[in-house]
């Protein structure tokens, strides 16, 4: 007896399956409350621990507590842009509607988080460096990242034909990826006022009492970013359906 042939699913097929807007809405409505709940718990624990329990730094004293909002925001500014570039690549290669919508929703959240990273860094810089801003390689490359986000927001909405805007935005997002390693390695390649990385793949150069609340905050902020983008994407998919329904009704009445 012949056994029926099994065909391994190709990566593109799996992506198409999960990129179905209806399936996404059903899945997201289940995941969203859990993601939001875990985010709230982690952010409250991380920031509460960091503000009230974690020890102060020997040199920076209490000002170091800004790390618990600055580092998660700075990490997400870059990670969010990586997500934007990934969606842009999926959009250009497979023409996924969901990837287009996701890219358009990531950039405003990414721009807001980058603003937070820049502003909290500036607030931290004043008591530590004596200046709100310096044209240091790290700060300047993050400012460039902020302008890339703004460029993407503007470009996606600049055309009458949304598909042209999404394609132009996707190209800009992919070109801008070159800025991510510049941000990461700016503190190693140039002599910067900004300190080098304290957390690397090989370990961390900080006290565990500071490290743990920081890691919890970073995880909480990351899940919060995902929850926000997911909620905005749900709204975008619904708005897209509303436009399609209205368009279909207009055609029926003609």
């Amino acid at each position: 007896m012949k056994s029926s042939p099994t065909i391994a699913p190709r990566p593109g097929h799996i992506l198409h399956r999960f990129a179905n807007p209806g399936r996404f809405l059903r899945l997201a409505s289940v995941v969203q409350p859990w993601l939001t709940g875990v985010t709230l718990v982690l952010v409250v624990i991380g920031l509460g621990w960091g503000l009230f329990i974690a020890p102060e730094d020997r040199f920076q004293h209490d000002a170091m507590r800004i790390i618990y909002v600055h580092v998660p925001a700075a990490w997400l500014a870059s990670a969010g842009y990586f997500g934007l570039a990934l969606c842009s690549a999926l959009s250009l290669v497979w023409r996924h509607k969901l990837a287009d919508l996701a890219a358009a929703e990531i950039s405003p959240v990414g721009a807001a988080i980058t603003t937070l990273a820049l502003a909290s860094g500036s607030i931290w810089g004043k008591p530590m460096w004596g200046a709100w801003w310096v044209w240091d390689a790290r700060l300047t490359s993050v400012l460039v990242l902020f302008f890339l986000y703004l460029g993407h927001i503007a470009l996606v909405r600049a055309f009458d034909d949304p598909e042209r805007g999404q394609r132009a935005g996707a190209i800009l997002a992919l070109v801008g990826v070159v800025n991510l390693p510049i941000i990461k390695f700016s503190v190693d390649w140039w002599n910067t006022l900004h300190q080098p990385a304290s957390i690397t793949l090989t370990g961390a150069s900080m006290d565990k009492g500071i490290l743990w609340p920081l890691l919890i905050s970073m995880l909480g902020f990351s899940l919060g970013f995902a929850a926000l983008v997911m909620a905005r994407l749900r709204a975008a998919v619904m708005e897209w359906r509303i436009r399609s329904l209205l368009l279909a009704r207009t055609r029926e009445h003609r």
Partner: protein
Amino acid sequence: MTHLPYIAAAYGLTVLVIGGLVTSTWRRLRAARARLAALDPRK
């Protein structure tokens, strides 16, 4: 020198930015859900 005003400013700004994002997203999602339900009661 006390750093309390800087810490308060950084955390206050975080609450403002995140709070603004959450509020705008929640209002948009609620409006889209209501409009879609009105147009297509099956959803």
